[in-house]
């Protein structure tokens, strides 16, 4: 699987819609490709911000609280 092929399958991967074979090839590629690992993380971040943007637009003060909560959660699971 090439990087160019992988980026087209990212959503299917997140949705658990890849065949077992494709998922294996997908993950095997991720194991050796930092570029695609970064791309996947970018997609995750995009979804996260998409989700937060709406709520934060209504309540801008929540942004600081959300950051604090994530810090707290991170140190908790460390």
């Amino acid at each position, binding site marked *: 699987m090439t990087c160019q092929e992988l980026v087209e399958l990212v959503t299917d991967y997140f949705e658990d819609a890849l065949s077992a074979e494709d998922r294996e090839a997908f993950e095997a590629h991720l194991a050796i490709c930092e570029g695609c690992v970064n791309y996947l993380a970018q997609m995750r971040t995009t979804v996260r911000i998409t*989700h*937060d943007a709406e709520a934060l637009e209504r309540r801008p003060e929540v*942004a600081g609280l959300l950051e604090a909560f994530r810090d707290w959660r991170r140190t908790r699971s460390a």
Partner: protein
Amino acid sequence: MPDTSLVEPYAGRDPDAELLARLRRGDEAAFLALVERYGPLMLRIALGHVRRPAVAEEVVQEAWLGVLDGLDRFEGRSTLKTWLLRILTNRAKTRGEREQRSVPFSSLAPAGEDGPAVDPDRFQDALGRYPGGWVAFPADWETVPEERLLARETLACVQGAIRMLPARQQDVIVLRDVEGWSAEEVCDALELSEGNQRVLLHRARSRVRAALERYLEEPA
């Protein structure tokens, strides 16, 4: 298992079952509660199809009337909210198509619906060292401070990117990623197959990611 760390989907019975029952009995407060609960979402979806706020509001009004008209026939095989949004999106689409026909120069026209997730120029061609491989790796966004990711300007960038999407892509990304609906609920509301829903979601997310990338990586 689907990656639910992305967005937590709703799982369970109809959360509006009680409101629905009260609505059927003619409870006005229940109707108002429903309008308050779903009105803003319905308006947002309508705006993706018709653009003009006044027209979008008309679409939403008509949708609510359609809901009341159809209430006795509603069998509850889908949840109330998916049914509401189905009525709304059908009206929004119809109205949107009518509006487009009367606009000579479609400043409303979004960029083509099709296209790869990432610009092909980002990948090496057949002559490259690794055909199909990245020319330059995408950046590691872990190094971007959280406060920048959550800054008003960044959020505005994402929201702007969503508004620029073709209507159907906008519908899917708003319901899935903004509102947290499950894939099943979205397919139900938008009358899409699972495969179609995924394709639309993929294109929408890819475009938003690209817009975010351009914004985050523009030189200071």
